[in-house]
């Protein structure tokens, strides 16, 4: 299936985008927001497969590399959370102007937090597709820093490692983790990001991956889903038996996740 790669002129700079047009009778549009740092690279192949399957199912899909990520302009070390939310809004506007029908935001891992940030400003989104959503920016930040220092159970080992890095960031210093320069401004904003959504009547489709045939939705996401239902949204959760493809060092392709992605967006 054909797709177009191009640079979108977002307010904060040129952003690399891949647009997969809807195939056949168009059902709507989907904006993909990628995870944080290395998880983005590891999930590229799956995101491309999911975008292609959605295209074949009648959805126009736009994948954007946020500022300082992938092939977009800027350095990761200069990226800001507010800038990423702006990028997402610019991408949503581009997509909505070209594809009629319902517009979905689709966030993987920390991309779910970017989507929530954008939805605080965007009116008219039909739905939100959350794939193994990160539940808070603080969690994303700590897990990213833990990659660098590990975890030690020995007193005096790496104890205080993550806390020491957080203190560096708070005092305005950048830190290097796994080949990424994390700037203090981005770290500060990321730590405050939450998966909170305005009240409304969106469809929210959540997909979690869990090993084994009898996976249950995580207690944390189940609690959020209950809050969103109380706020008026139509929420569904699904659990797929598949490996966490955004973490695995070897390229992992999961047809079950691709199928679940298309099924989640099907009209109800």
């Amino acid at each position, binding site marked *: 299936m054909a797709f177009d790669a191009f640079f979108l002129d977002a307010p904060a700079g040129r952003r690399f985008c891949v647009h997969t047009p809807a195939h056949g009778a168009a059902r709507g549009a989907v904006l993909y927001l990628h995870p944080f740092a290395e998880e983005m690279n590891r999930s590229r192949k799956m995101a491309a497969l999911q975008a292609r399957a959605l295209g074949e199912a009648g959805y126009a899909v736009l994948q954007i590399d946020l500022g300082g990520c992938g092939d977009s302009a800027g350095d990761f070390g200069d990226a800001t959370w507010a800038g990423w939310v702006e990028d997402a809004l610019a991408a949503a506007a581009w997509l909505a102007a070209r594809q009629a029908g319902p517009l979905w935001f689709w966030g993987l891992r920390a991309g779910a937090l970017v989507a929530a940030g954008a939805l605080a400003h965007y009116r008219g989104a039909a739905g939100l597709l959350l794939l193994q959503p990160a*539940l808070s920016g603080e969690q994303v930040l700590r*897990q990213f820093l*833990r990659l660098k220092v*590990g975890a030690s159970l020995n007193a005096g080992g790496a*104890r*205080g490692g993550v806390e020491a890095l957080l203190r560096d960031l708070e005092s305005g210093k950048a830190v290097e983790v796994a080949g990424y320069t994390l700037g203090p401004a981005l770290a500060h904003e990321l730590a405050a990001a939450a998966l909170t959504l305005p009240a409304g009547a969106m469809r929210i489709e959540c997909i979690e991956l869990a*090993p*084994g045939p009898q996976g249950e939705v995580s207690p*944390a996401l189940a609690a*959020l889903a209950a809050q969103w239902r109380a706020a008026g949204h139509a929420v569904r959760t699904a659990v797929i038996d598949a490996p966490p493809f955004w973490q695995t060092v070897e390229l992992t392709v999961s047809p079950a996740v691709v199928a679940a992605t298309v099924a989640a967006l099907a009209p109800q």
Partner: protein
Amino acid sequence: MFHPMANIRQETRRILDHALGLNGRALAFADDTALLGALPELDSMAVVAVLTAFEDRFGFVIHDDEIDGTVFATVGSLAAFVERKAGS
């Protein structure tokens, strides 16, 4: 956020089993099954994987100074730690 205690104990076993690649062995662990020093699979990378899985499943954040060898002594001590975190 309320999580029934029985589920937390079961979830602890599932997370251990997956993070340490035990292929179902951990699902049969008793509360007094020893972890640290008894399970060679429990290296520093596995500890990171276990902590990350607990954070993702329960939505809390684990600080460096909350964990030490006593938390990872047995299945029961680890589950008790998660119960405290999930209940707070």
